[in-house]
């Protein structure tokens, strides 16, 4: 009976195993992801709106959220500029070492974040390779918000490069030739014909890099110095509240961040819908 109804829900197919596969998928998804996330939402809801708001609007929480969001935004913008240049160079030009560079772009995906964190700290600390060059000028990177920015640029770069790369690769040369034959110079072709076509991919890459940066923890905490109101990120504040066994505090901040992550997913889906409409498919 239940089986018959289950079959009616899908289009008929000769292949077996639909019920088993979907049943396992939904069960596993619920147990690992949905129920735990629901527990978080439930816990946040039990605080009541005023309880939730008291925690989220506390000065230290607001400061941490501001540090996380502002620096993530800046880092994602830096990644857009350099990520598009890197994607462009890797797709359009041939030069020695290109394939090595292409492979190394994925390093932030593969390198554990804690390792990235201590390595960046070693480089940008006062006695580090770059820190010691900047120190005579009074510029400090490690243990300041700048250090957070460096870590977030590191962590977000592949998102922009890897979303822009395939779109640029599929871009038809005929369109460039058409623009040129209609009298556009190269700069006009690039900025008024090509970049607008790449815009959905660039925005998606930006949103992915931004979302990853806001939630990033491992690579940041070593280089940030973690001074409240100055270089303390929101994920760290969650950990601090948990260590104080302040579950309400941790949950409220987490719920606020989760809500913003949902907005980012929504934004990405809207971009993709817009792109599909624009391509008319």
């Amino acid at each position, binding site marked *: 009976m239940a089986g018959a109804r289950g079959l009616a*829900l899908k289009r008929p197919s000769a292949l077996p195993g639909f019920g088993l596969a979907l049943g396992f998928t939904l069960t596993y998804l619920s147990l690992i992801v949905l129920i735990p996330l629901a527990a978080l939402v439930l816990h946040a809801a039990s605080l009541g709106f005023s309880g939730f708001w008291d925690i989220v609007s506390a000065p230290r929480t607001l400061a941490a959220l501001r540090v996380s969001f502002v620096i993530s935004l800046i880092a994602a913008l830096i990644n857009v500029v350099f990520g598009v240049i890197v994607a462009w160079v890797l797709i359009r030009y041939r030069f020695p070492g290109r394939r090595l560079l292409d492979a190394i772009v994925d390093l932030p995906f593969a*390198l554990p974040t804690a390792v990235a964190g201590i390595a960046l700290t*070693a480089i940008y600390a006062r006695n580090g390779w770059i820190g010691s060059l900047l120190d005579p000028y009074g510029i400090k990177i490690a243990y300041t918000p700048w250090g957070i920015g460096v870590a977030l640029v590191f962590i977000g770069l592949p998102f922009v490069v890897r979303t822009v790369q395939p779109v640029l690769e599929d871009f038809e040369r005929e369109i460039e030739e058409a623009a040129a*034959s209609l009298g556009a110079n190269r700069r006009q072709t690039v900025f008024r014909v090509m970049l607008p076509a790449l815009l959905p991919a660039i925005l998606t890459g930006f949103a992915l890099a931004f979302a990853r940066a806001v939630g990033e923890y491992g690579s940041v905490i070593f280089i940030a110095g973690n001074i409240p109101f100055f270089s303390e990120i929101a994920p760290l504040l969650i950990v601090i509240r948990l260590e104080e066994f302040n579950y309400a505090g941790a949950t409220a901040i987490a719920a606020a961040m989760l809500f913003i992550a949902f907005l980012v997913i929504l934004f990405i889906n809207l971009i993709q819908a817009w792109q599909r409409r624009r391509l008319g498919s």
Partner: protein
Amino acid sequence: MSHVPLGLDFIAEDRARSVTTERHPVRFALILTAVAFLTLFLLLPLFAVFSEAFRAGFGGVWNAISEPDAVAAMKLTLLVAAIAVPANLIFGLAASWAIAKFEFPGKSILNTLIDLPFSVSPVISGLVYVLLFGLQGYFGPWLQSEGIQIIFAVPGIVLATIFVTFPFVARELVPLMQEQGTQDEEAALSLGASGFQTFWRVTLPNVKWALLYGVILCNARAMGEFGAVSVVSGHIRGKTNTMPLHVEILYNEYNFAAAFAVASLLALLALVTLVVKVGLEWRYAGQIAGANRH
């Protein structure tokens, strides 16, 4: 008789070429920018790990990684990956079979939900399990009365790792299997193969390289995860410390040489992952649909 002088000939040629590419100086500047940026932000940290690790020489590295707490951390990391990766592999196969081979309502929502863990901060991925199974959590009192410990113990670390590596295999398999359609399977079934034989002998060989691709990425994240695991682990030396957590402890004790020595092992794992990944992309590009989409 119009004879174009040599100099003008060259200009005309350069102009023809420049229609779909930039001029030499621009090209050179862009390549230089990209190389400088990647060197500064990606290569330099990688070199730094090994350079800091080998400051104390091979002996120092060996001492740091053969010390009992480090060995315990390695064993735990391997154990956690050995559970989390196969679990997500089986899930990836089931999910991609259901999503790619059948049409049913709610499919795109399911696809979005599978990617959900990638949008969640690692810290929150750990927190959700603390809220469920921690002492003050929903199941905390019951678990305590039964004498089962999940948070600050290995099961919590495994759960948090499964959460953060959840989408890796599924997101490689779903687009590829969608592209391949159901014709091969229908042919096998019509020739008398059983459902299991069809899956084992037709579907699985069709996706094996994408499967391996997803598994190595999943494994790299499983072994390297820090934030989520840090929240649920409790940092008990020799018991609930994975390798990344061990790196943190050594670093916070100002034992930098040892921290970088253990970190260099993890960096080596990252390099091996990249080499296998690139190898698969070069050799089997057509059989890994997701290769360009990360």
